[in-house]
């Protein structure tokens, strides 16, 4: 892996973690007002500013995973405009809230509302930089994967699932990083939560591995990595199934352990009275492993083999 590719990979991981922490906070702002959005003028700019960093992550991802130069330039242009409009509009709304006295300093975070203002200023500045210095940005940000011939359905399904997966994975990684604020080692059921904490980090590890795998294989022939990838993915797949079974078993036997330990990170579960958090944590990595390493790689290997065996016309 070249130094440039490695740096781009590390930037992506760092951005993912920062965006995750902001997404986690933004999601809690969103959940605080979800019942009717009575305070949308106040809370809207709060959670949207936090979500802007995830938008930046997606934009960076498409830029570094698009080998076609023409499409890269288009991606950069559209997202640059998006950053300017999004960041600018949110800054205006924050100023309106400040004038109305809706934001009380230091309540929602240590430096609130300076944190959300900073995010929007950075987004606006990035948007302007991208628009003014498009070629320079294109040159500086490398492509970290090569173009593979994927079936169209893989591309479409991958994009849709990818969005959902990243939201869930970055949220739970941030939830794990925020654990010092809510974790209590003294509860009798603390031990039961360990499999869920493993799954929380596992979801992001699958993503990191995928990104590393793509970057690492950039200069290599895809087929060589397929067998290794499928083997590791299958082992991980089995591990997730095992932890998932353990979580389900614990849920049956110890009905209070999630509400006693993890309620603050599973607000949707408590809003809709359904225990979906543990299921998401189990199902998402299984789908991702299958889709990225088992299903699609097998499919691609088959396609490549077929190509090789086709008679030259």
């Amino acid at each position, binding site marked *: 892996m070249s130094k440039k590719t490695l740096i781009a990979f590390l930037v992506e991981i760092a951005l993912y973690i920062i965006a995750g922490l902001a997404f986690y906070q933004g999601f*809690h*702002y969103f*959940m*605080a*007002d979800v*019942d*009717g959005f*009575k*305070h949308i003028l*106040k*809370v809207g700019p*709060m959670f949207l500013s936090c979500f802007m960093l995830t938008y930046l992550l997606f934009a960076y991802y498409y830029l570094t995973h698009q080998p076609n130069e023409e499409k890269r330039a288009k991606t950069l242009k559209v997202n640059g405009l998006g950053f300017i409009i999004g960041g600018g509009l949110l800054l205006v709304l924050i100023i309106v809230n400040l004038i109305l*006295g*809706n934001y*009380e300093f*230091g*309540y*929602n*975070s240590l430096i609130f509302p300076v944190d959300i203002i900073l995010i929007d200023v950075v987004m606006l500045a990035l948007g302007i930089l991208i628009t003014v210095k498009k070629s320079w940005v294109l040159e500086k940000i490398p492509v970290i994967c090569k173009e593979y011939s994927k079936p169209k359905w893989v591309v479409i399904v991958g994009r849709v699932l990818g969005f959902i997966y990243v939201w869930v994975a970055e949220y739970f990684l941030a939830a794990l990083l*925020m654990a010092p*604020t*809510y*974790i*209590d080692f*003294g*509860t009798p059921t603390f031990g039961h939560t360990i499999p869920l904490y493993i799954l929380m980090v596992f979801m992001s590890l699958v993503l990191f591995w995928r990104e590393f795998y793509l970057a690492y294989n950039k200069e290599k022939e895809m087929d060589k990595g397929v067998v290794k990838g499928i083997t590791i993915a299958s082992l991980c797949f089995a591990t997730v199934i095992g932890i998932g079974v353990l979580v389900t078993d614990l*849920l049956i036997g110890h*009905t*209070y352990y*999630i*509400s*006693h*330990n993890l*309620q*603050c990170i599973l*607000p949707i*579960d*408590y809003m809709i*009275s*359904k*225990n979906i958090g543990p299921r998401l944590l189990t199902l998402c990595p299984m789908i991702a492993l299958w889709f990225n390493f088992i299903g699609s790689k097998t499919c691609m290997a088959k396609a490549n083999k077929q190509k090789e065996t086709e008679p030259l016309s």
Partner: protein
Amino acid sequence: MKNKRFAIIALMPLLFSCTGDLINPNYVKEMTVSGDEDFNVLQFTDIHWNYSTNIKQASAFLTNTVNEAKKRAGHIDLIEITGDSVLVANKKIATTLYDLVESWGIPWAFTFGNHDYEGEWSEAWMNNLVSSSKYEHALLPEDINKADKVDGFSNYVINVKRGDKVEWQIYNIDTHNLVEEGGSYDYDYIHPNQISWYEAQTDLAKENNGGQYVPSIAFFHIPPTDIYDFEKDGTLVGGIKDEKFCPGEHESDFVKTAKERNCRGMFFGHDHSNDIVWKKDNMVFGYGVKANTELYSTQKDGIDITGGAIYSLHKDTGKFDLEHLIIDYDAPEKGASTLTWKEVNL
């Protein structure tokens, strides 16, 4: 026979240790009332401070309600916060709320609701905060609920004494949070070991009261399933019902047990759009008044059904007055609205 005797002797430490768990003196808080005065309790429920709350407005509303209650009742001796004081929030917001309550200089009791653990803290943090020495007027006992065999953090009793006599008991019961049932969550209920604890406490008070159960009232968050019986067979005392009841999903013997032990009233929150109260079999049973418009609330005649409930416990008689003090959330300067209702000598 000898073996049986031995077995009983051998089991005695175990029996004592179990009873000890249920009658630990730390469960009991004492307050005194002098002269012929009533002991006045102001109940706040479902305050729900969260990230979207305008803290200044919400603080002013609560303080104004306390002041209005003082005007009505003459004095407030105890503030009861019956759960869901916070929602999705952080430690700063929660601490600001309890600092405000403490600043009123009135003793305050506290029970947990199902939303109280949704913030970015652990159960232990919340419990430690409210029972910490930082809050001189808070009555939630420190530590006791952590290590005992009684489910929940906020089970304790306040003995209201006039002279040497315990005239009233005020029970705080933890209705917990949610219980998982086959992939979905149901609202929790008062568990059997809490009822045993309640029995032990009432028996102890009875022993010291010449063999008579002391009149009591109980505060908690989630209504019990008995609410349907009260709606069906009870006599309406006052208030409105503007949403379906959301009681705990499991039946509990708590109401039946409490009735047998001279419990004169049970008051809770949880359903924000209901403040209805009934009377049945010598017991008053119903909702308090939501103390904020957060999450959802209801209106009547254009006025928010928000404010507090005042319970004036009378001397000797075992009777009390009940008043729902309803103050429009967006216009607290109007004072208590015409929707306020009062019933005496319940």
